[in-house]
């Protein structure tokens, strides 16, 4: 076992460059083709080209953004909002994405009041959304490396002065690392355990149970973002940001 450890590490280090997947050329071609369709005003064809690029397995904020624009120009408000939301997961601070999303949301017929928390709480609850998951992952890695380097420096330094400096550094990096890890977990939880969706039907009745025979309790319009709480027999229990909810058919939703 003792002999195995280093050899496994060495294998991983050697194998590392080859384990990366090679960049594909085709998605960018489909993307650029979509752009030229868009410029000619052929929005349906542009949508097809962008979806082709997506089907090749690339998740890119530019691609989702342009797809959102094409959907919007084609009159599909709900899908446009969906595409912008997808783009925003990958590039949360992109100005264009946020602008268009805000504009499209102003077209939605019902204005549901957003989350009720405010002030400091709102800041902390929205802080993770300010970063993409990959940014948080790499930030966490870098802080982790700084922390371990300063810890090693602390362990290996025998002069009292240097040792004290290293101890302070370690404390600073440890707290930064702690914060970044918290952010990373918060974002990860939000993206992987919360199921959000966009309503696609221009008008949709939410019912009190999973079936047409139940009472209508809400009317929803295209483009609203909801959270899926439960799924059953082609129906989903959804919840609006303001706490209202009901059962709708799954086909009228598009998961983000």
């Amino acid at each position, binding site marked *: 076992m003792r002999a195995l450890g280093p050899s496994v*590490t060495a294998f991983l280090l050697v194998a590392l460059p080859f384990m990366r997947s090679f960049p594909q050329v085709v998605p960018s071609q489909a*993307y650029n083709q979509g752009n030229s369709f868009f410029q000619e005003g052929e929005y349906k064809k542009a949508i097809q080209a962008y979806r082709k690029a997506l089907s090749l397995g690339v998740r890119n904020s530019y691609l989702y953004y342009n797809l959102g624009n094409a959907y919007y120009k084609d009159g599909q408000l709900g899908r446009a909002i969906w595409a912008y939301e997808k783009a925003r997961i990958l590039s949360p601070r992109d100005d264009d994405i946020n602008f*268009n999303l805000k504009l499209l949301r102003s077209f939605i017929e019902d204005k549901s009041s957003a989350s009720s928390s405010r002030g400091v709480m709102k800041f902390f609850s929205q802080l993770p959304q300010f970063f993409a998951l990959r940014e948080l992952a790499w930030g966490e890695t870098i802080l*982790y490396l700084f922390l371990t380097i300063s810890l090693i420096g602390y362990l290996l330094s025998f002069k009292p002065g240097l040792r004290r400096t290293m101890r302070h550094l370690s404390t600073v990096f440890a707290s930064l690392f702690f914060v970044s890890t918290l952010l990373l977990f918060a974002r990860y939880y939000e993206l992987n355990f919360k199921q959000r969706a966009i309503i696609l039907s221009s008008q949709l009745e939410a019912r009190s149970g999973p079936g047409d025979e139940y009472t209508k309790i809400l009317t929803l319009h295209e483009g609203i973002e909801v959270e899926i709480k439960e799924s059953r027999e082609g129906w989903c229990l959804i919840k609006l940001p303001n706490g209202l909810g009901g059962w709708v058919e799954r086909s009228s939703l598009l998961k983000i």
Partner: protein
Amino acid sequence: MGSWKSKLLLISSFLLIGLEMVRGGELTFIASVDKQRLSLNEQLTLTVTVSGKDVGSIAEPEPPPLEGFQVVGTNSSTSSQFQFINGRMSSSKTINFIYYLQPIKVGELKIGSFKLKVRGKTYHTDPITVKVTKSAGGAAKLPHPTAPQVPSGEVSTGRGNLFLSALYSPKEVYVGEQVTATYLLCTREDLTNVQYGQLPSNTGFWTEDIYQAKTLNFHPQVINGMRYDVAKIREVALFPTTAGELRISPMELVCDVSVRSNDFFDFWGRTKRVRIRSNPGEIKVLPLPPEGKPEGFAGAVGDFTLHSEIDKNQVALGNPVNLMVTIRGTGNLRLITTPVLPPLEGFKRYEPEVEEKISKVDSRIGGRKIFKYVLIPQREGELTIGPICLPYFDPQAKCYRQAKSKPISLRVTPGEEEKPVTVLPLSREVKLLGKDVRYIKPDLLKLADQGRRVYKTPSYIILHLLPLLAIFFSFAYRRHQLRINQDLGYARQRRAKGLIQRRLKEAKRLLKEGSSGEFYGAIAKALTDYIGDKLNIEATGLTIDQLIDQLRERGYPSEVREKFATCFENCDLARFSPSNLSAKEMGETLRLAQEAIWTMEKTTKQGEKVG
């Protein structure tokens, strides 16, 4: 382009002829053409090659009368070759005389023999026949063979090998009629890095780009008997906004021209930055005739149609109706402000939302422009939206015309309820129509996969595991260092093994020298110190028995003790007996000592409980 090709040609001929030369050692004199069939507007390159040993400087061969051809240009190039054969160097030289010929008549044309006199001997080339056909029709002559407008001193060649030609058509237009300016780059040089220097500032015109070259597509063309490569750079539609003699300032291009060098080995050549300027344009702009100018004419010039429609035929009182007025056609669409609306009685009208799409059809600018009006009927019953007109001037027919739509009727039903004003959703809508999403992101060479799960990549995992290992090792190292510094016994124990190995080596040296007394002394001292270090006791004063007792107390097995005892006894025996012991016996003692140490180390390693 010329020098590139000729250099390539040169290389090939250089290689072939070079081989020929070395074998023959004679003078070679050949004439060749680049093609045997050509059309009237193509050019023929005739290459006369002289090569041989000690060609040195020879005169140009005497050309035959080139009937049916016009010599457009000449060129020459020289190359040398050195070769070592059996240690002897031979040199040969090749000279190419190149003639650029332009056929001036159709049919079978004969190029006679060139003559060359070298050291009293006359050489002849074989005559060549080429077939000249009529123009292939593809490459027509430039419609406007402008003389090169290249300002002197600005172009390196100065031979008119490079110029920018601007064509303006037509030369006489009405205000608001389209003038098309086409810029052609004509060159006989290698061009790289072509950029716009200065774009024409067209005051008095409203301009619209028709074509802008992204890559230069050169087509061969003959201008004034010379072959040029011509590429369309830019095409612009200009709409004059005032009458009078208007001047279009020239366009400037900046490009790198490769400088032909005489040195063959300077293969890539050098380039020179050159600025070229097109010819300016003079356009006579006629004012629109005042007679017959219809009412409401707002400057539309071209050919237009007008169409209007509403989104519903029946509407409740007070609810909005969208009226769409579409203008289609060619002309100065952008300058059309609004069509003339008839007085709309019984309607409340809002300012229109304008949407225009400019398109280009056969270098004519046109397209469509849509005006979206929001109308709110103010009374019930049948309402009519009368014909909507757009008066425009037709420059082809030189008269004014009207584009007119059919009247539309609308049924207004009484409102379902007495809503005071439904302006609220309307005003919101009007406000929002003015907004649009931001434009799409640009093209990309590579789409990065941003959704890759970073935390699942091997590099991420390694970056998190390796530091843990490093911390573990540095922690272990620190503990070790601290024990050495603080625990004297630990330090002695750690250094004992290294020390005894050095000492035994020293003993081995003594053995080789044969000084047995010193050898046994060293062994005894080394072993005593070793046990002292290992057990962390002061061993120097102790007797053998005391040392062995100490070992027993620390729990070392009898095997270890016996080995040490034997060693010590051997040493004592040897030191105090008078007889000199043999090297063999000394070696045996050394081996025994090493064995004792090895056994002891092993016991220690087996468990610290011993210590």
